[in-house]
């Protein structure tokens, strides 16, 4: 190696002289890969400002609470989906996993009279097991993620319907209702649960070995395997987390409605993928952001809320959401195009 390095390269990284040394030693705060968070953040701020001027009650506590509740389910599912997509997969079966695991919960409680905690454990275990099945099929049988999860969506949903038929389970214990409708420090429980999940996920994604390896597995699986990363374990793991979080989202949804309907939860999948992609996670793997998914979930929730507040029919929510997704993606597609050209 040469001894006579140009001095300017030697100190190139020590630019944080106003901060204590450990600050400069932190990993990049928003995550290991560069994700265009500026697009969803701008859209969110823009929409909020416009709404604040047109509808004074947009920033009322009640309305903010409604938006947060709306965003919380998508945040839970979005965190799992961000992990799966970052690892170069996709899970189309989340709606079915959500339904199947809540049907298991309801059946355990109502049909088998099992204790509440057992019902919770069975519910979460069902979600994780469904994810594990997806992961096994994708990795060991080397089938495309899209095909596998499209098929298991039908299988899981079918199983729920076979058991429950058109029946509706309702009238759950108070603790379940507290998860859906209770508040802590005036914040709805679903919001607390989903924000905790987001924070933990971000910490693992950005500051932990797991996050780095997940990005590597999605970005260049061959390189990751050569460096000794267990690619199969990470891919299966991402599906298990997704299944587990689908079950958690199922619990929250069931608790809010105080009901389980085996034929529900069909629009969640597209909204979840939309939130993840709007948040800047790259659809084909290797680049993901939990912060982006958080912003994406809120953006979609604010759009739905705005449509209702402005007095349009609820069906316009879909149109508005589609347009906002296109604008947001358009914002950062143009940005990357500029960088390349």
């Amino acid at each position, binding site marked *: 190696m040469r001894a006579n390095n140009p001095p300017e390269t030697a100190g*190139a990284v020590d630019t944080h002289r106003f901060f204590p040394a450990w600050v400069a030693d932190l990993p990049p705060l928003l995550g290991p890969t560069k994700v265009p968070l500026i697009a969803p953040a701008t859209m969110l701020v823009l929409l909020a400002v416009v709404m604040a001027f047109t509808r004074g009650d947009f920033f009322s506590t009640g309305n903010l609470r409604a938006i947060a509740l709306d965003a919380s389910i998508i945040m839970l599912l979005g965190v799992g989906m961000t992990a799966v997509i970052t690892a170069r997969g996709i899970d189309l079966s989340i709606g079915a996993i959500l339904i199947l695991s809540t049907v298991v919960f309801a059946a355990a409680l109502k049909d088998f009279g099992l204790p509440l905690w057992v019902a919770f454990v069975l519910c979460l275990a069902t979600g994780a097991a469904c994810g594990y099945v997806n992961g096994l099929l994708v990795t060991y049988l080397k089938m495309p993620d899209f095909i596998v999860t499209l098929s298991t969506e039908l299988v899981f949903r079918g199983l729920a319907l076979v058991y429950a038929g058109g029946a509706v389970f309702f009238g759950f214990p108070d603790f379940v209702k507290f998860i859906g409708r209770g508040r802590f420090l005036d914040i709805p429980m679903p919001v607390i649960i989903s924000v905790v999940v987001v924070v933990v996920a971000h910490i693992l994604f950005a500051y932990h070995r797991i996050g780095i390896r997940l990005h590597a597995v999605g*970005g260049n699986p061959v390189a*990751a395997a*050569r*460096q000794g990363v267990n690619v199969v374990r990470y891919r299966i793991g991402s599906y298990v987390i997704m299944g587990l979080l689908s079950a958690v989202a199922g619990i929250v949804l069931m608790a809010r409605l105080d009901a389980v309907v085996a034929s529900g939860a069909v629009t969640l999948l597209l909204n979840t993928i939309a939130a993840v992609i709007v948040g800047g996670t790259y659809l084909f793997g290797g680049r993901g952001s939990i912060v982006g998914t958080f912003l994406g979930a809120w953006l979609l929730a604010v759009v739905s809320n705005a449509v209702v507040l402005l007095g349009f029919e609820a069906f316009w929510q879909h149109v508005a959401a589609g347009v906002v997704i296109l604008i947001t993606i358009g914002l950062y597609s143009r940005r990357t195009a500029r960088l390349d050209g």
Partner: protein
Amino acid sequence: MAVELRGISKRYGQVLALENVDFTLERGEIVGLVGDNGAGKSTLMKVLSGAVRPDSGSFAVDGQPVNPGNPIGAREAGVEMLYQDLSLVDDLPTVMNVFLGRELTTRFGFLRFGEMRRHAQGIVDGFSVRGFSVTQPVGQLSGGQRQVSAIARSIGFGSRYVILDEPTSALSPNARQEVVEIISGLARSGIGVVMVSHDLATVRQICSRVAVLHLGRLAGVRAMTDTTQQELVSLIVDGHA
């Protein structure tokens, strides 16, 4: 003290990429591995690094048998590899590529990023390739900077054997000379180096031995002192001298 491959064969469908190949690398020596395109050089080196499991043959490091086809096993035995395709994750910065699979972490797996950054930057700054920050995604680096990132990963961990598959292909004459000096330095410090290269001049300049592959077979191994350019060329082209 050596890495030893015995009777290695590897088939890809119709192609017999390697046929009963023996290869030895002693510590402290630099061996050149040459051969035409498709001769099997990269495949042989991937067997050495554990990235490819051979159909048959044995693999031992310093007398200890190593489970073939296991990159972690090979790395733990002290073998480190620079892949011809560089094997980088484009979206991750150089520092995370260098440490991928062996991140410095706290007891609970949280990244000790500052330490990793300083270590990686230190290695990279040893090259005069236009200085770059190891926190930049490697996808944004120049071809030479990418190659330096990949080289940093293969020399930065005190391994005993280093495999370099075309280490200088993307480098300017200046940077190539630095890599040549690094390789010589590694050998002087007791590390065994294999260098795959199409650049016979460089091979003749720094290698003490040269092995020639021809259509998956070992066409010959020569000490650099008793072979000629002429002989090497006919081994490469015809498979015999």
